[in-house]
């Protein structure tokens, strides 16, 4: 148990298994802003995003996962489905699902999310508002059933 071999994909050390970057996430379509990159402006994306560099401006990143790595420094409001923070963030964070602050995280701003995990040692200055953060489903289930029936008709 204590001599557990480290996963090659793991980038961040954590004494607790609470906050990890799973290999599944790595396999998904992901954009990476490396540690030497500095960006000033507007950024939007519809895929997972890992920020290890510096970003100043706005980040519109709805429905996907955003990770601010240990080296990451963000001065922007963040809007994403899940937000994992290991580095520094100055700005408001809205996580549709969960916001995780690792022990190395340093956050100055307000957090609005459905669930939050804050590791021992994480620095946070701001207000947390929880719940009622989920967006309505894009399609009602009945429509999907109707569509399936239509497809079955066309095939049959």
């Amino acid at each position, binding site marked *: 148990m204590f001599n557990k071999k480290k996963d090659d994909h793991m980038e961040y050390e954590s004494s607790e298994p609470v906050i990890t970057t799973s290999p599944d996430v790595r396999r998904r*379509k*992901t*954009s*990476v*802003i*490396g*540690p*030497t*990159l*500095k*960006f*000033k*402006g*507007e*950024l*939007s*994306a*519809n*895929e997972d*995003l*890992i920020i*290890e*560099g510096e970003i100043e*401006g706005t980040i519109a990143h709805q429905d996907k996962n955003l990770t601010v790595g240990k080296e990451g420094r963000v001065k922007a409001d963040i809007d994403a489905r899940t937000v994992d923070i290991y580095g520094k963030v100055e700005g408001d964070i809205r996580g549709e699902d969960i916001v995780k602050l690792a022990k190395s995280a340093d956050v100055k701003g307000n957090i609005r999310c459905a669930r939050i995990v804050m590791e021992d040692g994480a620095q946070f200055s701001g207000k947390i508002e929880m719940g009622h953060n989920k967006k309505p489903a894009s399609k009602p289930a009945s429509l999907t059933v109707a569509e399936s029936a239509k497809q079955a008709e066309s095939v049959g």
Partner: protein
Amino acid sequence: MPSIIGSTVVMNGELIVGEDLEIKGTFNGTITGQSQDTVTVRRIARLSGEVSASLVQVEDGTNLENTVLSGRIRLAE
């Protein structure tokens, strides 16, 4: 892990790069590479502005309208 601007990413602004960068998404603005960095522009990328790097690698068929490239430029298949 190299830096990648994925196909759904849209960036408007100024980017300073100190490592290799691959662009598949949309970038409007200025990209400035430092030292020996390579900026690779994929065919699906949409660029507008200026890209300056030690080596700018552009995939054949990339739309470079309204884009100024500077540095060593290489066309790749």
